[in-house]
């Protein structure tokens, strides 16, 4: 879902300042737009004002100067409780109400919105289902009985239950172990695809920022240093701070930010044959496309519905008229959403230099070759960006 969002700005911060009573300036003259449906990640070292910025949006903190518009309306003119009910809020760790069961936690906002009893019940069931904790099994549990990852899931379900227009997340996965964090990040990405909500996400983990964000806003000392798409930050960092922060000079680090689909993989002139093809046809096609593994030629084989069955090595074929189907073996593949880092690992593990790019339905989205990765590094080194896009 990356790309430029031409949509309406959903949240607008205009020259916002926040000075606390102690005299410390948490946010300095910050102007930022969050577009409908995008995920904007706020990132920076601790004390950079990212959390304060998030809390300014739902008025847990009020601006000293400047204004914040939500759907074009100044938030200071709105009822703060009503405003917050329109924005889901997920915080790190122990934000669940310990004295309420899981289902009561999730029911908080629907009840505040005075939804009828039956509708509350249905909403709770639906939201818990979305985060993989069916209400029959988990609804009656207490938060203390859950693992950290499960609590965080309940936190997300609670934020979704009010059917908010925006979800604000303050380091939601910060307290989790790396494995659980990965899983929850992936789940959130999938949820986002389905729900299409605007999300403002605070983190101090640059990997998380690059993975989750359609755009990433880097902050330092209360100021916005740069905002842009993850790859733009990598290829055109505004200053040394951003370059250091995103690790733009670290090619291996870059590999974990760049997604396979952004490279982009080759989609034309691929050696693909239907399952009914013969070795002769496959050989001719392989000659034309010129894609080889070492000196061996091969083709990918798809069934009638377009699903990839695997690859067929056509060097050792017996007769031109034999069906290619007989030689099909499973082909190493990678998802378009995976990082280039994962793709490279997959190549090394399988001892191949070509990787199929497959979507969830095993449909071919292209071919990623080791040569592509090589050119990616060259581009980056010459400062021409970190994709192969012209």
């Amino acid at each position: 879902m990356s790309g430029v969002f031409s949509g309406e700005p959903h949240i607008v911060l205009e020259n916002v300042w926040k000075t606390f009573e102690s005299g410390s300036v948490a946010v300095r003259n910050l102007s930022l737009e969050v577009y409908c449906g995008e995920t904007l990640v706020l990132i920076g070292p601790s004390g950079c004002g990212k959390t304060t910025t998030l809390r300014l949006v739902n008025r847990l903190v009020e601006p000293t100067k400047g204004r914040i518009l939500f759907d074009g309306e100044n938030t200071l003119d709105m009822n703060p409780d009503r405003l917050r009910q329109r924005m889901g809020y997920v915080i790190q760790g122990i934000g669940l109400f310990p004295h309420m069961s899981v289902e009561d936690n999730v029911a908080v906002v629907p009840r505040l919105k005075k939804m009828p009893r039956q509708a509350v019940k249905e909403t709770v069931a639906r939201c818990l289902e979305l985060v993989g904790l069916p209400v029959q099994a988990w609804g009656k549990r207490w938060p203390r009985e859950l693992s950290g990852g499960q609590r965080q899931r309940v936190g997300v379900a609670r934020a979704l239950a009010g059917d908010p227009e925006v979800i604000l997340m303050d380091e939601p996965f910060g307290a989790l172990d790396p494995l659980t964090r990965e899983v929850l990040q992936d789940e959130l990405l999938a949820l986002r695809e389905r729900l299409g909500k605007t999300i403002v996400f605070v983190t101090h983990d640059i990997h998380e920022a690059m993975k989750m964000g359609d755009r990433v806003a880097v902050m330092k000392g209360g100021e916005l240093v740069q905002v842009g798409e993850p790859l733009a930050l990598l290829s055109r960092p505004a200053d040394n701070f951003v370059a250091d922060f995103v690790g733009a000079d670290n090619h291996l680090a870059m590999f974990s930010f760049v997604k396979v689909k952004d490279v982009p993989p080759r989609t034309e002139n691929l050696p693909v044959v239907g399952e009914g093809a013969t070795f002769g046809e496959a050989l001719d096609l392989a000659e034309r496309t010129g894609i080889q593994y070492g000196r061996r030629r091969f083709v990918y084989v798809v069934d009638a519905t377009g699903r990839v069955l695997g690859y067929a090595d056509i060097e050792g074929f017996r007769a031109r008229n034999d069906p290619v189907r007989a030689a099909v073996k499973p082909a190493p593949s990678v998802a378009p959403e995976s990082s280039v880092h994962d793709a490279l690992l997959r190549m090394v593990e399988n001892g191949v230099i070509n990787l199929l790019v497959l979507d969830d339905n095993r449909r071919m989205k292209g071919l990623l070759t080791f040569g592509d990765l090589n050119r990616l590094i060259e581009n980056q080194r010459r400062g021409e960006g970190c994709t192969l896009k012209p």
Partner: protein
Amino acid sequence: MYLETLSHEVILQLALQHLQLVFCACLAAFLLALSIGIWVTRPSLKDRIAPRLVAQVLFLGQAVPSLAVIGLVMVVFGTGAPTAIFALTLGSLVPMLRNVVAGLRGVPAPVLDAARGNGMPPWTVLVRVELPLALPAIFAGVRTAVVIAIGTAALSSQIGAGGLGSLIFTGLAMFDMPLMLAGAIPTALLAIAADKVLGLAETRFRDKW
């Protein structure tokens, strides 16, 4: 001996009178402590002088001995049960207030943040989040205060408010050990029983989550 003329009914009646004093005083103290405790812990008032001052004065008040409080109150209000109740209320207020404030301040900041951040109005945050979470602490305060009040109420016979204290002080004055014990033992039993019963209720609150 005077004790022989003392029937069970008299002891029971005095015990009931004793409990009445304690109950009225503790109820009044509880309502006061809850109101003041809620008032001083409101975030909007955090930096105001008034709540801090009130809390300081009340906590200092705990240092004044109960008998002195009763004496002082008597000077103003005269003798009788209302005076005793007033004095007991003052005495119970501080342990209760201490725990109400501790309980409300002890609600984890992220939980409060989540409550407000999800759009709960201040009153709802108080009723649905803060008070339930502070309940075990508040209850512990009530328990301490009730036990202390049962003991202190024995002094109120000195200002003519009755209660089991009458037996104790008469017994002491007449060097009548059995008579004194007829007041002291039920007082002790009442205190122990109240402690146990309230303790049981407290654990039930605590174990719920």
